[in-house]
């Protein structure tokens, strides 16, 4: 899959992993509040951010996404008191995997998004997409 073929108005394409009980309701709240963000952002909900396979992050980048954002449970996780650390471990492993495959590890970002963090989610998407644009520009300079 070519990344360029599926571009949305040229904006960086972001895959978000959300969590069913914490961050996905926060992302829904952004919708309920009609707080716009880029249509290039799509979301896959999972039960808990500590259960994300690092290989899914690599797969998403290989498939054409410019970046992956893990909207983590953080300390609000109902399953695990140490969810932040566990999700951090997943991120670390995923970033190593990206580096091994010659992808910039900064294409993966994690932040805790709570169930009412609509504004925070909107802001994260804006900043992450801006960072991805810079990242790509920097890489292109290096290549040229």
């Amino acid at each position: 899959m070519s990344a360029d073929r599926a571009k949305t108005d040229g904006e960086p394409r972001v895959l978000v992993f959300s969590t069913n009980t914490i961050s996905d309701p926060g992302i829904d709240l952004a919708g309920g509040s009609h707080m716009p963000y880029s249509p290039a952002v799509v979301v896959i909900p999972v039960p808990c951010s500590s259960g994300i396979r690092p290989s899914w992050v690599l797969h998403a980048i290989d498939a054409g996404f410019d970046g992956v954002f893990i909207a983590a449970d953080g300390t609000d996780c109902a399953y695990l008191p140490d969810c932040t650390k566990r999700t951090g471990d997943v991120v670390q492993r995923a970033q190593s995997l990206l580096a091994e495959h010659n992808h910039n590890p900064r294409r993966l970002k994690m932040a805790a998004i709570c169930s009412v963090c609509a504004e925070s989610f909107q802001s994260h998407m804006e900043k992450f997409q801006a960072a991805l644009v810079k990242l790509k520009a920097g890489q292109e300079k290096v290549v040229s």
Partner: protein
Amino acid sequence: MTDRKIGVYICHCGGNISDYVDVKQIRDAVSRDDGVVIARTTMFACSDAAQEEMIDDIKTHQLDGLVVASCSPKLHLFTFRAVAERAGLNPYQYVQVNLREQDSWVHQHNIPEATQKGIRLVRAGLAKCVLSEPLSTMRIKTIPKVLIIGAGVAGLRAAASLADMGFAVYLIERSSKAGGMVAQWGKLFPHDRDGRALVADLHNEIKRRENITLFTSAELVEKSGSVGDFSIKIRVKEQEEISLNVGSIIVATGFDPYNPEPGEFGYGLEGVITLPQFKELLDESEGLLSYNGRRVRNITYIYCVGSRQEQTAERPNPNKYCSRYCCNAAVHSAICADALDAEVNQYHLYRDMRTYGKNELMYERAGRQGSVFVQYDESDPPLVEKTGDKLRVRVKDRLIGGEEIEIVPDLVVLVTGMVPRENQKLIDVLKLPVGRDGFFNEIHPKLRPVETVIDGVFIAGTSQGPKTLAESVASAMAAVAKSAALLMKGYVDLEPLIARVDQQRCIWCDACTDACPYGAIEKVSFEGKEIAGVIPSLCKGGGACVPVCPENALDVEGYTDKQITAMIDSMAGEVV
């Protein structure tokens, strides 16, 4: 190619979706996709007529998968699972796509892009549906008995309510008497009701109900089984062990008052006491207020002691929360002190006054009666010293430009908050998660405030976090309602979206056992080798075991590796 037969329904949501997303374009795009037998748009997918149409289609076309692209699954996941079930389709072969909250409502000014995104989202749902498998819930007959841990006001009140609904209640209390903290207090805010009398009344209510058994000096030492049918063992008076079966458990273990560090706001100096100690002094006083045989004429209250703390090197685990009850209790105590001696001078050194709701009236009353309120800055807190036999408090008043005031009180009352009660044994037995504040954690503070990740175990009162007495009882009633709703049906169906093991791949390295905090993975034998086995009644489906498996032998049903990668491919794919 797939041999699946899937029906796809795209909802207009009366314009909430179709005003910003071209639903017909989505339908036309996915109708040609592999596995799609029928694709329709519908004005309201959740309407009776639309549900009947889906049921008819499922039966007519013998569909084995259903995708509904409408609102958030938080609203209608169970509605459409029920539709599938009524049509004879396995409800776990239904997938809901969030086309409203995560598409139409956030891209209202870009219909073409919102539509393109909608096509990708529906295709991702379709990819997940193609790989879905029929799953069965595990039905467990529920036992109409409830264990309540903690016989404070929340526990006592919950016991009486459940008993009135016809449930047998086992109420266990770690200390030798029921009543908890409230049993030690006299007048309570806001209505001056006596705490001891309140507990005595509740205790009498408990005695009148034959279906409540109260065990004091008792603790829970073992728990097995699952929601609806827990086998428990309680130890009474450190000797006798009693085995029981209950359908649900309510944890109402209460709080501990914050105990200041020596030297914290002068704590340890004669005349510096905590709010609970001051309450006791007030309750025991007849006539003028005195402390250690000396009349008390000047009282200084210092608020937020042990609450809203900042992290420092000396205090790596601060209590960052507000304890909610303490501003109210301190202001009420000032009113009680004034009733004993109208000439007593009272100075309240506060950070922010949080006598919220109806309790604001107490604050006004205290002010009218002569209490002086001085706001201090958290970065420059009051200083308490002893010079000779006199206590001296120096504070900078924020409201008069930080000017320093010196007070010479007879008594300094540290308005202390709540801290989580030491419950490590109980935490271990119930495997109940605690939050970063150390209190028991609910699934969701707003949407599921008394439920925990351990199905059938509910939390109530201040075991969950600081609360006033009224809030504590309200949460106990919520736990009663959830518990009764669970048990009244007579059975419970356990969600099958839990971990599963690829028996060929697993080599029993034990990593998953370490990752699971619920003890849901055990060693089992398979074709002559040892592998991991999932205990369905204990697995919560969180998936923490999945990424730690070096053999990729673990998946969570509904979120398998194949499903997620197929969804990623569909979302990344070109829209044609």
